[in-house]
């Protein structure tokens, strides 16, 4: 039996966990109504349990006190007994499938925002401000310390009464407990600061109070960091000492270990390592903690693959592996391993769409899986075969939308043909994956390629579909996912020309796709500020160009999420890319052998120039609509989608209406440029009822 090590049950405290795989605590941003778990929340975890996950620890940063605001991230609020019946639903749903569920409880101290909800005064041991949340805070008083200790105990009681299997005390990510631990934040000289014992006191009192309240049977764990990576913070040796100190009490049932602190943007990116990181980059820290504690150790951070998980477990570095993003990408991960379908696992690529949304206070979604966290709406992870008529479905365009449309249609049992003009499927994903450190994006395409092959989809590469080729196939449904092209013509003075010889500017796609070689001195003008601009700058600098990236927005990469822009910045600065903001590209003209780019200051209108060899422009996508307008008049539905049905996740009414000819739909960027998730989501919700 392969992957045996993953399937050996383990006891955590009184609970037997059926396997070694954990969905660790993360903020789901799904709780509603004052921090109550909702149907959406329950279904999201039920799906993981159904898929075989051993232990789910839900509710990242679920708060125990009312002065730790839960509203910003729609996290769970354990400061009131109102939560108890909600937990009962959650516990039943997970237990029904043999899973175990615990919740992370915390007081976030200074790590929050104060400017909303109850306009709380944030607390911290010494009133030191936290950079990531730009939050100021007061110095905590003795009375407040004891109140919060009591709040922890009450929160644990509520989890227990709600039928959950345990709580995880968060002493990581610079929450209140580890704010007391860290000399970086705790400058106190009273009994709560200074010496090791004093810094440990708050966490110890919390642990004691919680244990006292819930008894020995209920699981109580702690999540800690393995090294804060701050010069004035807690290092690995100190963390080992702390872990051993708490372990010696016998009151802790497990430790979860995370590498890196996260109170700066740069360290925060470590906590949820994106695709530019090596696999399990911080395993050594968790393994170090394991050498000093007597209870099981959980480690998550870039563990996504069953082979990788097995290797880690077999080696005995830790006892359980967190595969959290892996479960967001595919909650049926474990079931697929057990079914011998490891090649069918939709593997997390580390795009961090999930966590980057979370930091913007948006619900957690997966870049490549439209069903995740939409289980409550009835979006399926497993597409069932249709019981209705089998149809001929033609999909035009092999980008994310087209691939998902072809996959879902084929899973429904239809006869699917996919046209792709290029020599490989993937669309813009392929272009995106060419940038340094972004190659994992291609993993999305690889999964689709394997699935489409398995489902027997007829993929026609190097075949730009036209009216005749499509109609030759006598389709019942035509889906256009033809994407678009770089939008280079918006400003005439940029000097774009279809003829590359004459054009003064180059698109970022042409650079990344390798059609145009990077020149020596380059100006990248990026008005979109998503991944594409910083990617192309990074790519060119990597090839040896001197690059300046200019934007008229507030900073280059402004729209790149909180766990990803730091890794771009690390590499851009390292390669001496100049990042300039607030300047718009006004005009490009030739002067002798050089190009001169005229930039206009967004706020003063002042002009300045750059003398360069090449000007690269990233101005987003212009939809390709020609084919659509050719086919539209001939289609039964005139290309229209019933939005009410679409948004309600219901079948398009036209599917059941009789009539001659084909139905026409278009999805993704050929409608309006959005993103990968949007294209995939549209394809899924539209095609699941074909």
């Amino acid at each position, binding site marked *: 039996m392969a992957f045996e090590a993953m399937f050996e049950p383990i006891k955590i405290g009184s609970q037997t966990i059926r396997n070694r795989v954990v969905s660790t605590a993360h903020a789901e941003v799904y709780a509603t109504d004052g921090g109550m778990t909702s149907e959406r929340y329950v279904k999201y975890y039920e799906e993981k349990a159904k898929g075989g996950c051993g232990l789910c620890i839900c509710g990242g940063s679920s708060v125990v006190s009312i002065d730790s605001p839960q509203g910003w991230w729609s996290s769970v609020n354990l400061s009131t007994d109102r939560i108890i019946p909600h937990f009962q639903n959650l516990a039943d749903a997970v237990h029904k499938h043999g899973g175990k569920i615990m919740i992370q409880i915390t007081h976030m101290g200074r790590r929050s925002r104060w400017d909303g909800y109850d306009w709380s005064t944030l607390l911290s041991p010494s009133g030191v401000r936290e950079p990531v949340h730009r939050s100021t805070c007061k110095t905590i008083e003795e009375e407040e310390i004891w109140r919060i200790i009591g709040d922890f105990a009450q929160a644990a009681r509520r989890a227990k009464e709600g039928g959950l299997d345990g709580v995880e005390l968060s002493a990581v990510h610079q929450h209140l407990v580890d704010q007391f631990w860290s000399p970086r934040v705790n400058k106190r000289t009273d009994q709560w600061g200074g010496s090791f014992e004093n810094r440990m006191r708050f966490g110890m009192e919390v642990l004691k109070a919680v244990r006292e309240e819930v008894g020995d049977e209920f699981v109580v764990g702690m999540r800690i960091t393995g090294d804060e990576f701050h010069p004035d913070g807690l290092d690995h040796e100190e963390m080992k000492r702390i872990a051993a100190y708490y372990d010696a009490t016998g009151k802790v049932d497990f430790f979860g270990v995370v590498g890196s602190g996260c109170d700066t943007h740069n360290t925060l990116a470590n906590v949820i390592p994106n*695709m*530019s*990181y*090596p*696999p*399990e980059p911080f395993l050594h820290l968790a393994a170090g903690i394991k050498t000093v504690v007597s209870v099981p150790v959980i480690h998550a951070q870039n563990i*996504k*693959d069953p*082979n*990788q998980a097995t*290797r880690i477990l077999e080696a005995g570095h830790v006892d359980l592996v967190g595969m959290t993003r892996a479960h967001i990408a595919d909650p049926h991960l474990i079931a697929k391993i057990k079914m011998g379908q490891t*090649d069918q696992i939709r593997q997390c690529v580390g795009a961090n769409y999930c966590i980057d949304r979370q930091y913007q206070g948006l619900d957690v979604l997966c870049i490549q899986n439209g069903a995740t966290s939409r289980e409550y709406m009835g979006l399926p992870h497993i597409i069932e075969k249709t019981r209705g008529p089998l149809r001929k479905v033609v999909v035009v365009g092999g980008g994310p939308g087209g691939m998902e449309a072809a996959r879902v249609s084929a899973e429904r049992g239809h006869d699917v043909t996919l046209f792709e003009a290029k020599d490989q499927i993937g669309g813009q994903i392929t272009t995106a994956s060419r940038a*340094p*450190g972004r*190659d*994992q994006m*291609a993993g999305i395409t*690889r999964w689709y*390629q*394997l699935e489409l092959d398995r489902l027997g989809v007829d993929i026609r590469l190097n075949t730009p579909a036209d009216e005749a080729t499509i109609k030759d196939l006598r389709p019942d449904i035509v889906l256009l996912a033809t994407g678009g092209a770089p939008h280079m013509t918006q400003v005439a003075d940029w000097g774009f020309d279809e003829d590359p010889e004459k054009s003064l500017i180059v698109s970022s796609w042409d650079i990344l796709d390798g059609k145009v070689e990077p020149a020596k001195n380059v100006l990248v003008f990026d008005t979109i500020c998503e991944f594409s601009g910083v990617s192309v700058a990074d790519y060119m600098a*990597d*090839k040896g160009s*001197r690059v*300046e990236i200019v934007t008229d927005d507030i900073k280059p990469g402004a729209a790149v999420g909180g766990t990803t822009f730091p890794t771009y910045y690390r590499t851009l600065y390292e390669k*001496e890319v*100049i990042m*300039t903001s607030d300047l718009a590209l006004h005009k490009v003209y030739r*002067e002798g052998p050089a190009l*001169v780019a*005229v930039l206009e200051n967004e706020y003063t209108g002042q*002009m*300045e*120039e*750059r*003398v360069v060899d090449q000007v690269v422009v990233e101005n987003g996508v212009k939809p390709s609509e020609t084919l659509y307008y050719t086919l539209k008049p001939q289609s039964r539905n005139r290309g229209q989608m019933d939005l009410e049905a679409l948004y309600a996740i219901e079948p398009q009414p036209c599917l059941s209406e009789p009539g001659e000819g084909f139905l026409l739909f278009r999805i993704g960027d050929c409608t309006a440029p959005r993103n990968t998730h949007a294209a995939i989501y549209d394809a899924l919700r539209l095609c699941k009822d074909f």
Partner: protein
Amino acid sequence: MSLPRKNPRLEWIARNRLHPDHAQVMAEQGASASPSQWMGPAGLVRRDPHRIGSIGPNGIKRIDRSGLLSSQAAASPGRQAKSEPQKPLVTIDEPAFIIAVVPDMAGGELTSHDRDVLGMARQLADADPARQGAVLAVVFGSHRETRFEHAGVDRLLHLGDERLEGYSPERRLGQLEALEREYSPERWVFPDSQLGGAELGRRLSVRLRERPATQVWQLLSRDNEWACECRGARERSDIVRTLPRCILALEECAEPVSETRHEVRAVELEGSVPEAMIRIDNLGQVAVDPASVALGEAEFILSGGNGIKNWDRFHHAAVQLRAAEGASRVAVDNGFMPRERQVGATGTWVSARVYIAVGISGAIQHLQGIERCNKVVAINRDMGCDMVKRADLAVIGDAEEILEALVALIDQKRTEEARHEAA
């Protein structure tokens, strides 16, 4: 670097922002020494943001907005040269005792196991500041190790006699006995490895009538006395015992030396070593079928990725090179190679002496899987790919042509060799 020429008047003007010529002087100064900003013909300021600032006296980039010190600018900004920090050198002139270590020196270099064992020897030598010991390494035959000083070697006994080259346990034992007579090491430490240490260590122990501690995996300090923990009963038990004189230690028995340099003072055996009775003749290594060795164990791997177009030729090359075959995840997903050949974090971790990556760009998972390889060769079209950055040797060009040339070269050498033998 030439000394900067000074013009005190211009410096004065540059410092004096109220001087009427200030702007012009500043512009001229900049223009002569790579300007960062100047006036373009269209009357718009032209900037070269790459040129802003210079390297200050501390070797750190400095931007002098005051202009006060700019004339002293020495160098334009650029990447700061990285230098390896020099570790302190430890010399032990009169050691209180000797810890003798006999490293395996596979391939003429210290193995990682050797380094671990030297690390353990270091612990034994340095434990008591009042009684400082020295680590003596015994090296047989020729070697190409250049970093003994970083591995914690105080004394090096290099026995270069060519008869000690290769597998020669009986002769080597004779030399170690001589060493025992002359230096009476306080302890003998061997790597307990199939490469030689396991055998030589046991031979010496029984010769010296010492009961060795074998498969030692950690030292323990008990009441000012050394003890050790060993594996016993084929990995099934742990045995704690007082530390004997002869120690055969497992990999990772101790951290290798990393913070100090050591003297590597050469020593020699004074007396003559009696001729050993030789009962074993080494007839040399035997070619084995690479397919019979597990991928994770393979010594030599030829690995193919997306850049391979003709897989038959790849397989042919692997056969000719007598290398085990590996593949990137992409090649496996695309169905060109079986799943069990996948190298990387999501496949097999390999530890080859030489790993040739053909047409593999080097996804981060793949790079992790080859972390333990000794030498990595990249054959790739893309000079900027991560595999080329990782490689010890990278050849940029058409993978198939290069492979074919390599196979032809090997063919040619083999024929020559065969002719040579026949003659």
